[in-house]
């Protein structure tokens, strides 16, 4: 079964499903700014997943609304959030030590490009007039035990974002383990590309559109 093309909520749900299934005893997870934050909405209450935000908190709750808004309690995207029971606050050096030291189980990031070897490009378009701004992207990319990317498979011009080699400036080398997209889920890394799932497209057609005809691996769907 090929299934239908996934929207961003479907992708987030698939990531939430895999985090839960592959970490039955709970997991410490960082969700990058933007679409990855949608993953939180799909985690069951009893998943045991604890969210980390790199600006100094574990057990972050959902976005704050109305009276809950506290300017001293924001996530990495500077959006007001809430605190769950069992939360802990710490300073920036401790927070990034936690990340860099490999204590997070999963980190989900957006990307401009991911290479089949797992290289990540998600901080800079390379445009000459762009002001470079990296934030915590490079620390996140190399920190978590497993780095997963959530993105559309093609950009607005139709160019693949899963590529043999990144042309955008890199965020990290060989750091991505898995890529969740609207058209399929892929394993990347030293073993090369593996198609895990496809959605709304024939696998061979997908490989052709990606320009990665030799990319045939195990398929779940």
């Amino acid at each position, binding site marked *: 079964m090929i299934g239908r093309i996934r929207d961003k909520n479907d992708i987030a749900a698939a990531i939430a499903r895999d985090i839960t299934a592959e970490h039955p005893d709970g997991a410490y997870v960082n969700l990058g700014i933007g679409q990855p934050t949608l993953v939180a909405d799909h985690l069951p209450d009893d998943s045991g997943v604890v969210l980390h935000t790199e600006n100094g908190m574990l057990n972050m709750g959902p976005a704050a609304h109305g009276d809950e808004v506290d300017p001293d309690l924001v996530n990495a995207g500077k959006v007001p959030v809430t605190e769950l029971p069992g939360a802990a606050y710490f300073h920036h050096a401790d927070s990034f030590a936690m990340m860099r030291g490999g204590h997070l189980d999963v980190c989900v990031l957006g990307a401009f490009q991911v290479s089949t070897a797992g290289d990540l490009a998600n901080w800079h378009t390379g445009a000459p007039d762009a002001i470079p701004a990296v934030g915590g992207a490079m*620390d996140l990319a190399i920190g978590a035990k497993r780095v997963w990317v959530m993105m559309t498979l093609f950009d607005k011009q139709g160019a693949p974002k899963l590529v043999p080699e990144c042309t955008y400036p890199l965020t990290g080398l060989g750091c991505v383990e898995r890529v969740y997209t609207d058209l399929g889920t892929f394993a990347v890394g030293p073993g090369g590309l593996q198609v895990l799932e496809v959605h709304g497209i024939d696998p061979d057609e997908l490989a052709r559109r990606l320009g990665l005809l030799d990319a045939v691996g195990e398929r779940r769907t």
Partner: protein
Amino acid sequence: MTARICDGYDEAVAGTADGSTVLVGGFGMAGMPVDLIDALIRQGAADLTIVSNNAGNGDTGLAALLATGRVRKVICSFPRQADSWVFDDLYRSGRIELEVVPQGNLAERMRAAGAGIGAFYSPTAVGTPLAEGKEVREIDGRTYLLEYPIHGDLALIKAHTADRMGNLVYRRTARNFGPVMATAARTVAVQVDRVVETGALDPENVITPGIYVDRVVAAEQERAA
């Protein structure tokens, strides 16, 4: 020297020399020491290097300081934001220098300055454009870059409560860079919501011990009370 409780923000930033490196706490507006920044603008020191996570939002605080033209260089992780027009304009017109540092390296480099570490090997940014010019070393099968400390002449920090010895506690994610910057600067000025008597803070819960704090200012309504 133990901490001094100051009468106002101006006293807390007095004597800042031209050419100083100033560490400015905060992550966006959480923990941003706006009143101390305003005092630094009034104080007038120029040719400054600012170290902060961002490079100003809107037209107030750090953005207002940049707008004075007295900042030569910004060292930060994320200058570009929806409302960073002051910085953007200075940068695009070549009137300000920028050193972009990954957020974790930024924090760790200041931690190293405060902890007397000469340099350290970080795995962050290996193989990226931000590795350019940095010494590379393989240790135990992994590649690292050599990173050096960032020392401040002055740190401007916002905390929640101080006691009269300068012991500090923060509030929620407004803690962020404060405790790290407090260790890394020669003079540390802190604005707090309130100052309590020594002994009122639980010693188990002090986040920044007073040894790191030089000058403390309570919010205006608190001082008037």
